């Protein structure tokens, strides 16, 4: 049980307190207080009200406060539609009302709905300790820096997010974010590896035109992943369905781009 909490006056103070006390950050609580997470820390730094939670549309993209709840993100018409859709995939409104965008990134879960979308969109995070990092660098580096804002560049090309779930409220079998633009492709996948991951080789072949058809994309993805078996799904199924969904998403992006 958490025995000590701290209410810093600023993000800088939050970082200092966390380091000094060996505490964890607690924003919405959907990860730290969630029984299956098994975190059970003794000390927590409360972030409620400390971080920005606005959505600002700029000429070159968006800036979103890390403290925004996922439901507020869903409800923000000025936010990127793809990101709003990814946030809406979290099946329970109560969770969306509590969980924050920054917390979702920091939790760094492989079954995140948002991380593949953010990576596909080329998002960056502003952190107190480490300055600006790409979301991809943040999660692959196992960062725990305090995120204050998320920056998204103006979306180039077409972007699709999708998921596979066994039932509507089950933890996902697959989460994905795919973006295809002129000279660029991003394929970000959740649930196929311990962390959300990109298929860079496949991306390069999509860009080069080596994978023109859905079948060739399917085969390339199929050959490049080795997902573990799930609780109720075989590894073979997860490999097949991942390749199928990515191929479908790439096709959808290409169609959107005309």
């Amino acid at each position, binding site marked *: 049980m958490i025995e000590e*909490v701290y209410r810093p006056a600023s993000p800088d103070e939050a970082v200092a307190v966390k380091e000094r006390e060996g505490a964890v950050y607690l924003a919405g609580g959907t990860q730290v207080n969630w*029984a299956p997470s098994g975190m059970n820390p003794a000390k*927590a730094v409360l972030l409620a009200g400390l971080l920005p939670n606005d959505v600002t549309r700029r000429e070159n993209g968006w800036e979103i406060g890390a403290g925004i709840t996922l439901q507020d993100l869903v409800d923000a018409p000025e936010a990127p539609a793809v990101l709003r859709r990814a946030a809406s995939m979290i099946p329970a409104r109560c969770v969306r009302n509590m969980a924050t965008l920054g917390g979702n990134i920091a939790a760094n879960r492989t079954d995140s709905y948002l991380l593949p979308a953010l990576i596909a969109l080329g998002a960056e995070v502003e952190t107190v300790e480490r300055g600006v990092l790409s979301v991809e660098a943040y999660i692959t580096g196992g960062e725990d820096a305090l995120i204050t804002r998320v920056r998204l560049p103006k979306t180039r090309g077409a972007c699709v997010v999708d998921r596979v779930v066994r039932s509507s409220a089950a*933890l996902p079998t697959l989460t994905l974010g795919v973006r295809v633009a002129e000279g660029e492709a991003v394929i970000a996948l959740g649930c196929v590896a311990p962390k959300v991951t990109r298929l860079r080789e496949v991306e390069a072949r999509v860009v080069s035109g080596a994978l023109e058809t859905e079948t060739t994309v399917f085969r390339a993805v199929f050959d490049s992943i080795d997902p573990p078996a799930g609780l109720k799904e075989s590894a073979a199924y997860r490999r097949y369905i991942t390749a199928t969904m990515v191929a479908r998403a790439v096709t959808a992006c290409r169609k959107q781009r005309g």
Partner: protein
Amino acid sequence: MKIKFLLNGTPREVLVEPGENVQNLLKRLGIASVRDSDNGHAFAGSDVISLNGKVAYASLLIAAQIDGGEIRTVESLTKDGVLSPVQSAMVDAGVVQSGYNMPAAALLIDDLLNRSPEPTREEIADALSSLFVRDSGYKQFFQAVELAAARRKDPDYAAKIAPEFREDLRFVGKVKKKVDGARLVRGERVFVEDRVEPGACVMRVLRSPHAHAYINRIDTTEAMRVPGVVEIFTYENTPEVYYTQAGQGFPEPSPYDRRLLGRKVRHAGDRVAAVVAETEAAAEAALARIVVDYEVLKPVLTIEEAAAPDAPIVHHSRLSYVTGAPEGLEEMNRDLDPREGEIIYQFLIGADPHRNIAASVTGGIGDIEKGFAEADVVIERTYAPASHIQCTPLETHVVYTKMEGDRLIMHCSTQVPFHVRRITAAVLGIPENRIRVIKERVGGGYGSKQDILLEELCAYATYKTGRPVFYKYTRKEEFIAASTRKPMKIRVKLGAKRDGRLTAVYMDLKANTGPYGAHALTVPMNACSKSLPLFLCDNVRFDVTVYYSNISPTGAYQGYGAPKGSFALQMAAAEMADALGMDPLAFIEKNRVREGVMLEILKCLGEGREGVAAPVESCGLGPALEQGARMIAWGKRETADDPDVKIGKGVAIVQQGSGLPGLDQSNATLKMLGDGTFMLFTGGADLGTGLDTVCVKMVSEVLATDMANVGILSGDTDNTPFDSGAFASSGTFFSGSAALLAARDMKQKILRAAALLLGDPVEALEIAYPGKVVGPSGTLTYEQIARRTQAGAGIGQLIGEGHFTTDKYAFPYGAHFAQVAVNTRTGAIRVQKYYALMDAGMPVNPELAEGQIYGAILKSLGHTLYEGIVYDDEGRPVNTDLRAYGVPMVGDLPDDVRAILIYTDDPYGPFGAKSVSEVSVNGAAPAVASAIHDAVGIWLRDWPITPEVVLRELGKL
């Protein structure tokens, strides 16, 4: 730390641990309505509150987070006891059944309407996305929201909720408020956990990490030294009394094959030791200090493993029989390890536990070989609905026991209060009159609360220590130590003439009863007895063999064995139709049961006793099939815009019983009170289905008095007469009939009393609405009659008695139609349409009947498509939470789902009523699986039917 917050508008200042769970905190502050169904997993939604104007899960919050905030709970919705528009709409729409998380639902809907006064269907589904509803499905919530939205503008707004039946009746067959609905939706203290008094001890059970092992030694020395530990029970200090946990009528067909705490553990999660402590922390600390030396044995998990010649034996126990005995019993009992314990049988059930056979039975009618010889086409298929399905009640199993003098008081969430008393008395070795069982409101049972899973252990602890003890299962315990549906493997062989007429039906059914034999004989038999009579055939045979294994315990679950038996037989029928080139609906129509026939097959399908042939007095299958076919446009090929998606349609017919004629018994007592109102005392156990409402309606109808004039007390063994309990679809038919008979007895007594008072002959008098007797000499109100009969010179309080037993059967029937879309690339299955047309006779509570059908539909779709306990190689369940297990939620509701009540008038049911709830879980699996075949041409014979299975059958994997 001290925190300040607003709780339902009132400033509160409270000392807390910063990390105290807010659900616990609110409970500590007297808010009972915010409950816990999943121990912080943030799934079921029983703990929903409003925090700073937004709905949130209380168990995902710690106390420090609410400092300075504003919390609202359902208590904020009710003003002066009057329900809010949302709450009244929920009761009126019939969504309030067991009610455990209905306060949370009310908050969610209130939040929705605050955000969106006229919400769309998508917005309603989103609002309900945080709530697990197992009993009523979600369909009627859409109606409730619509009603609530209208009532927020016009408090008097009324709408047609459900169809009503029989114009000649005033209450029965009419939409009326569930009698306990308001209390449930207000979040009142009506559940077992609400009875726990300050200072009560808690119980925690040390459970086996091994699926199969002997306990060589247990050392509780260090555990007993933990401050606050009162006592620790093990096999060493508990009686070696054998019993069954199955709450069935005595003598039970289930073997007495377990004791409170044994020397052998037979499943991962089996009881090893029970700690009674003054705090949860002390109990947990003690559990960690108990040292157990196990001798681990190889587990058997499947039917095949259990049946293997060299299989480890789950019960190599000493066997004894109260009545009858198999040959060679003495030989069987030689050289046994005493750690195995004993098994006592009340009578022969075809058991051979030393070969892992818990029960077996065989039977049939006609000449099966002749039937197959006459057939033009014979098919033989094996179906394996082997997934291990859990009941998942929102309120986990729970009990609170305490002593009052030398009497043991048990507050229970049970379907069988009288069996709880009987079994507890036997285990404790005390007479039944030393025990009082009080059935509280039941937060979901579905069959698992027909079994006595923790009551007797907690009772023993209280009896030995003298301390009040509270024990509530965790959600994990619910998965590893509560009743589940028995996995089965069913081989079906059918023979038919070219015109489709069945000539022979054979079922070879094997079932897995798990570690103990609760319902071992009757559930698998029920798979035959509730499926075979649906088709008329002169030559029928069945073989049933039930095996012990080391999976989680099995027992009763809504539908008993029928869902799996129905799946096998209905699928075989569809496959036979396919083999004959016939439309499956035409095949059903050709062979189906119909009104007036005699069901000879029931002669060999008694539940632990000799059966009798029974006539079908009412059967609504004809109109159900006709209307369903019309609704779903049977025969019309549907197409999708997506070329990968193929659409198909399927149909299945279903039946169940209405209680157990010849085995069940119900009793009721009705007293006229001093003001002419009534109090009904019934042994019936309302587990949320509306049985109390049924019983009240029976009385109101007969006595022509408003339902508000009839109070009810049910399921209290000290104060209500005996009832077998709520299982086997007995509620309306048995307990309802007892209430009806008590009301009729009261009616005669009222008329006789009035005759004396008026001086008119009895035959000249009539009961008239509202609550009066009219005769040639005048009119007497019930109040006048009560005052005068209960006066010093009166004839005494009028008391009506109802005692109901019967040998008559009333079978509910139904036709289920499904339309599914199958994506041939992803394997995804979407149930687009699901229509359940149910013949429940005369629906006493139409809106609640519909709710039970909707609940059954979603539940059984979950069983078919998603659910199942997964085990590791050592037999340990690994998905012991609701999310990982895979229960369906609002997002899994078919796009178009409809429950249609097909009216029939059964001559034996009260006002023509039959049962409705259990029968409705039998149709989804065969209807969906046959629709998948219609869509993409594959026959899927196992559960669950997943996208992966579809892809494999399509050759994509």
